[in-house]
Structures are given as structure tokens and as C-alpha cells.
């Protein structure tokens, strides 16, 4: 009974619901702006979470992720421009429906499919996360080192089409993590005599610089997007005949979203396209796909909204972010001195409980906010892009200064913006670098601590069964992605030869 009361008591903390609502609304608006991905929407919010109650901060960020995944479908349907990458699959049939005068119905299918995806993803999150984290109690420095290596081993699947570039980005991330005070001896490394660098470079500056600042630099040479017709943007609840058609597609989307959510590197975009493809394959109305099929909206929207919940499973239970958005969310946890991973459930069970409640509430919040925030989202999409970008710039520099009142931090974020721009130019992926930054300290400190404890016996990493198991999985991951990259390279060479 006491347990039940303890679990229900946060329900009366109305502030959690307020932050859920703020997060979802911010997510919808950010997701609706073409070019502003869920990770950028979340990164813009990060500086404001400093000094906040940890529960409110993580709940708001997770709700933003969910809201942004839905928000991306609004411009996809109305102006044929996906607000997020994952909404690209929604463009195909969403815009076709809009052209047939069914924009309201398309927006309704997108919303209710997103809600179903969110509910299913949330249930999977609750069911799968806790059992995964139960092994935590027996973790030692060797196991934490192995966990860090496992986290880094997923780089292969996050590296895009060039494994070497992914690995380079990861090593650069590890180098950034090495700046500051040495975890064992307390000596200063790469601080160049600057007291601002003694505590290292906060991950928040890396995230804001790489994702948001570099997007601003990139946008300076990109054209403005189309305008939306506000009159068409009224959500309509899908009729019974439509529900009959879309529920199989929604089921496919929910399953695909769950699988892709827990798979590192897959994310909402892969899930959306995979769900679209599967929905078409199993549909009785294959010919309607591409010409305004309701299933063509339902499947990808259910999938990407499910991913926004299930992607939290590896992040919460193992501390491994599998996508850009979960990497930013991980940054939000670190700001609050919360280390996602096995011990989170032991040391901060109250925050995990609040997060679960917040994520459950975010589904209801999305339902309400989608109706309320449709007109402001359309209004914002229709503002001149130049003003929007200028205000985002102002928000970024104000927010970064608010973190610690440091001009140096603004400079660091600008520098990472330049690095992010260069990485985009040279086609280096961001996520491996972020993984290096957030896992670098864990890998180094636990590696050296384990060696000190074992008297410099390297076999200690194989003698601990958890460590050995995690290292074994890491080896499988590395070999798997290496083989995948080799096969893909061979295939593309064959195609190029055939074309010439």
C-alpha cells in the first residue's frame, strides 16, 4: 500500500505535467519548422534545464522529443517539406491527401497514429528497461569499462556509409573528453593554463554547438521554405472506415518502431520508411500508396512516435544513446549529474518513476497540444526564415550564457558550431563524436581503476563474467558492422561498374 501511495504521489505534482506540456508544445513547434530536427529542438532547450529540478528537466526533454517527432508531420502534409527526417515518409501520402482536399483528415491520421505509437512505445519502455538494468547491482569497474566499450562499439552502425569517418569522429570525441583534470592523478591535461577548462568541456556545449550552432551556419546559404495555408490546417478525427484501413498499418508501425528504437543507429527515419514499406507490402490497397493512402501516413507516424519512447530503452538501462535525440537527452541527464545506465534505477528510482509518469502524460499532452498548437505552428512556419533563424541564434547565445554566466562557454559553443559545420562539409557523422564525449570519462576512469585494483592484470576484464559478456557483445557488434560496411562497399562498387 505504502509503495502504491509512493508511486501515485507524484501524480499530485502538477509541475511535472506543466513541464510535460511545455516540452510537448516546444517539440511540436520545433518539429514543425523545416530543418530543425528533434535533436536540435531538444538542444535549444538544454541550457534552460540547468538548475531545474532533475525530474522536471528530463521529463521536459523527453516530452520534447515525442512532440517533435509528431510536429515533423505538419509541414510534411501541408507544404510537402518534412519538418524532421523521420517525417519524409509521411510526405508521400500526406501531401497527396492534402492535394485531394483532405489535409484535415491527414493531420488527424498523423496525430492519432502518433498517439498510438506513443502509447505502445511507452508500454515497451516500461516492460523492457527495468529487467535490462537489473544486472546493475553486480557491476564493478571492469563491467563499467566493458559497458563503455560496448557503447563505443555501436559506432559501426552509426557511422553512415564510411566506417573510418565514424571511428575518426569517435576518437575526436574521446580526445575532447580527455580535456580537463585527469580522473586518477588529478593532473591537468590540455587545459593550456585556462581555469575554464579545468573541469573539461561540458557535453552540453558540444551538443548545442554540433547540432544547433552548425545548423545556423548551414542555414545561412539555404533558401526559405514554402508557406502553408492556415485554413487547411484543422485536425479532423478519422472516420470509422479510415480506422478500419489504418489499424493494421498502425500495428506494423508500432512493432517496427519498437524494434528500430532499441537498435542503435536506426532511429525514427529508418523506422518510418521501413514501416511505410511493410504497410504497403501487407496492404490490400497497394495501388493507393503514393496517391494519398491513409495507411501511408499511419504506419510511419506510428513508427517514429514509438521510436521516441523505445529509443530510451538502451539509453536508460545501459547509458548508450542510439540516436542523435537520445544523445541530447543523455546530455540533459548529465547536466543534472544523473548517469543513465544500470545504477540510475538504484540511485535515482524516484526520477525514473517521474520520467515514466511524464512519458505517460506526454501522450495526453500531445493530444491536447496538437489541437492548440496547430495555428501557432502554422504561423511560425509562415514567418520569414531569416527572422526565425535570428531569434534561434539569440535564444542559443542567451541560453548558453545562462548556464554558468560564462562568455567563454559562448565561444566554445561557437567553436563547436564551426567544427560541426566542417564535419557536415567533410561528411563526418556527429553521433560517434557525441558518444566519445559522453563515454570517454567512463571508459578511461574505469579502465585505469580496474587495473589499479587488479594489480595491472589485464585479464581482469575477462575474469569478470559481466565484463567478458559485454566485451563479447561489443566484438560481435564491431565485426557485424565491419562486415556490413564491406558488403555495402562491394555492392556499390558493383553498381558503379554496371552503370559505367
Amino acid at each position: 500500500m505504502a509503495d502504491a501511495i509512493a508511486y501515485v504521489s507524484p501524480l499530485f505534482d502538477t509541475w511535472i505535467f506543466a513541464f510535460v506540456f511545455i516540452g510537448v508544445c516546444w517539440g511540436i513547434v520545433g518539429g514543425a519548422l523545416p530543418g530543425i530536427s528533434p535533436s536540435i529542438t531538444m538542444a535549444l532547450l538544454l541550457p534552460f534545464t540547468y538548475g531545474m529540478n532533475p525530474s522536471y528537466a528530463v521529463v521536459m526533454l523527453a516530452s520534447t522529443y515525442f512532440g517533435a517527432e509528431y510536429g515533423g508531420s505538419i509541414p510534411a502534409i501541408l507544404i510537402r517539406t518534412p519538418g524532421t527526417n523521420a517525417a519524409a515518409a509521411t510526405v508521400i501520402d500526406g501531401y497527396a491527401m492534402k492535394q485531394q482536399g483532405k489535409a484535415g483528415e491527414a493531420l488527424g491520421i498523423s496525430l492519432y497514429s502518433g498517439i498510438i505509437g506513443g502509447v505502445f512505445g511507452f508500454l515497451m519502455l516500461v516492460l523492457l528497461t527495468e529487467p535490462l538494468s537489473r544486472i546493475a547491482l553486480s557491476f564493478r569497474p571492469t563491467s563499467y569499462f566493458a559497458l563503455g566499450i560496448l557503447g563505443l562499439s555501436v559506432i559501426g552502425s552509426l557511422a553512415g556509409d564510411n566506417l573510418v569517418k565514424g571511428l575518426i569522429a569517435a576518437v575526436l570525441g574521446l580526445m575532447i573528453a580527455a580535456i580537463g583534470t585527469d580522473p586518477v592523478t588529478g593532473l591537468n591535461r590540455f587545459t593550456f593554463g585556462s581555469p575554464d577548462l579545468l573541469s573539461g568541456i561540458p557535453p552540453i556545449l558540444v551538443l548545442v554547438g554540433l547540432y544547433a550552432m552548425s545548423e545556423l551556419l548551414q542555414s545561412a546559404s539555404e533558401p526559405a521554405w514554402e508557406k502553408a495555408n492556415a485554413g487547411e490546417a484543422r485536425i479532423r478525427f478519422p472516420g470509422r472506415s479510415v480506422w478500419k484501413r489504418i489499424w493494421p498499418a498502425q500495428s506494423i508501425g508500432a512493432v517496427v518502431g519498437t524494434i528500430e528504437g532499441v537498435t542503435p543507429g536506426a532511429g525514427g527515419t529508418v523506422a518510418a520508411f521501413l514501416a511505410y514499406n511493410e504497410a504497403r507490402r501487407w496492404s490490400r490497397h497497394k495501388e493507393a500508396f503514393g496517391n494519398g493512402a491513409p495507411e501511408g501516413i499511419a504506419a510511419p507516424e506510428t513508427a517514429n512516435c514509438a521510436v521516441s519512447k523505445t529509443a530510451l530503452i538502451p539509453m536508460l538501462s545501459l547509458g548508450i544513446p542510439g540516436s542523435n535525440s537520445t544523445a541530447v537527452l543523455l546530455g540533459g541527464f548529465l547536466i543534472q549529474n544523473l548517469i543513465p545506465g544500470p545504477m540510475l534505477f538504484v540511485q535515482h528510482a524516484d526520477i525514473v518513476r517521474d520520467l515514466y509518469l511524464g512519458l505517460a502524460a506526454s501522450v495526453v499532452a500531445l493530444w491536447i497540444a496538437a489541437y492548440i498548437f496547430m495555428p501557432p505552428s502554422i504561423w511560425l512556419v509562415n514567418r520569414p526564415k531569416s527572422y526565425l533563424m535570428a531569434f534561434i541564434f539569440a535564444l542559443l547565445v542567451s541560453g548558453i550564457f545562462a548556464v554558468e554566466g560564462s562568455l567563454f562557454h559562448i565561444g566554445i559553443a561557437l567553436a563547436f558550431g564551426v567544427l560541426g559545420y566542417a564535419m557536415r562539409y567533410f561528411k563526418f557523422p556527429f553521433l560517434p563524436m557525441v558518444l566519445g564525449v559522453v563515454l570517454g570519462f567512463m571508459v578511461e576512469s574505469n579502465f585505469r581503476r580496474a587495473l589499479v585494483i587488479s594489480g595491472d592484470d589485464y585479464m581482469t576484464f575477462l575474469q569478470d563474467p559481466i565484463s567478458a559478456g559485454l566485451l563479447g557483445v561489443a566484438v560481435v557488434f564491431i565485426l557485424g558492422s565491419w562486415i556490413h560496411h564491406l558488403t555495402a562497399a562491394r555492392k556499390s562498387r558493383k553498381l558503379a561498374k554496371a552503370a559505367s
Partner: protein
Amino acid sequence: MSRDFIAGCVLLVFSAIYYLAAAAIPASQLSDTVGPGGMPKSYGIALGVLSILLIGQSLLARRRAMTARATAASTEESRQDRYRALRAFGMLAIGVAYLVLLPLIGYVISLALLILAAAWYQEGARRRWLVPTAIVGAGVFWLVFVQILQIDQPAGFWPSLF
């Protein structure tokens, strides 16, 4: 020269400098066998090896895709790249200017100037609304950050006048 080749060369030079800097980290009496410079040195070596691999990859790819059409296309592409990089540099300059001006003229004025400059630079925004938008925008930010969230922002030289 391809982008990958240039990136590989730059990273190779950087890895050598980084390795030398890591090797120069002094050892402490409290040090373990790995030491404070141990991991950074291994990162430097790893980056060097990966940079060489990237250079090798780019040279192989270049040999495979050497056609006249590709060269012509890449000339046009590099012209566009230069234009994009210059535009991005302009945006960065606005950010750096804000950073320099912020402690001198204070938050509200430097932010108004940032909004004004960034909006104008992005696509030469409608001039009639540019100045009012920048002033109102900076005022709203000041209200939210300084008055509502109680976050102190630099006031510049203004307080010394009163």
C-alpha cells in the same frame, strides 16, 4: 584533391601534434601504470592510423572515379561549397561580434544588434520590419531571461554612467 584527402591530411597533422602534446604530460608520483598521458597517447596513435586509412580510401576512390564529367561537376560543386562556406563564415562573424560586444555594451543592445545582423544577413529580410523586430525581440529576451528567469546578463558600461 577530394574532401576526404584534405580531411585525412589535416587530421594526420593534428594527430601528430596531439600525440606530442600527450607525451609532454608529466607523470605524477600518484600515477598508475597507464598514467595521465597514456590514454591520450593511444587516441593520438588511433587518429593517425585512421587518418592514413582515410587518405588511402580517398586515393583509391579517386582512381576509380576519374572521369572528365566528374571533374567538371566537382568544379561547379567546389564553387558552391566556397559560397556556402563564406555565408557560414559571415554568420559566425556575427556570433563573434556579439561575444566581443556583450561585455562592452550590455545584453539588450548587443542582442538587438545580433538579431538585426543575423536577420538581415540570412536573406536581406524586409527592411521596414527589421529594426522594430530586433528591438522588440531583444526586449522580450531581456524580459524572459533577466526579469522572469532572474538570470544576470552582462550590463555593459551603462551602470557606470549612473
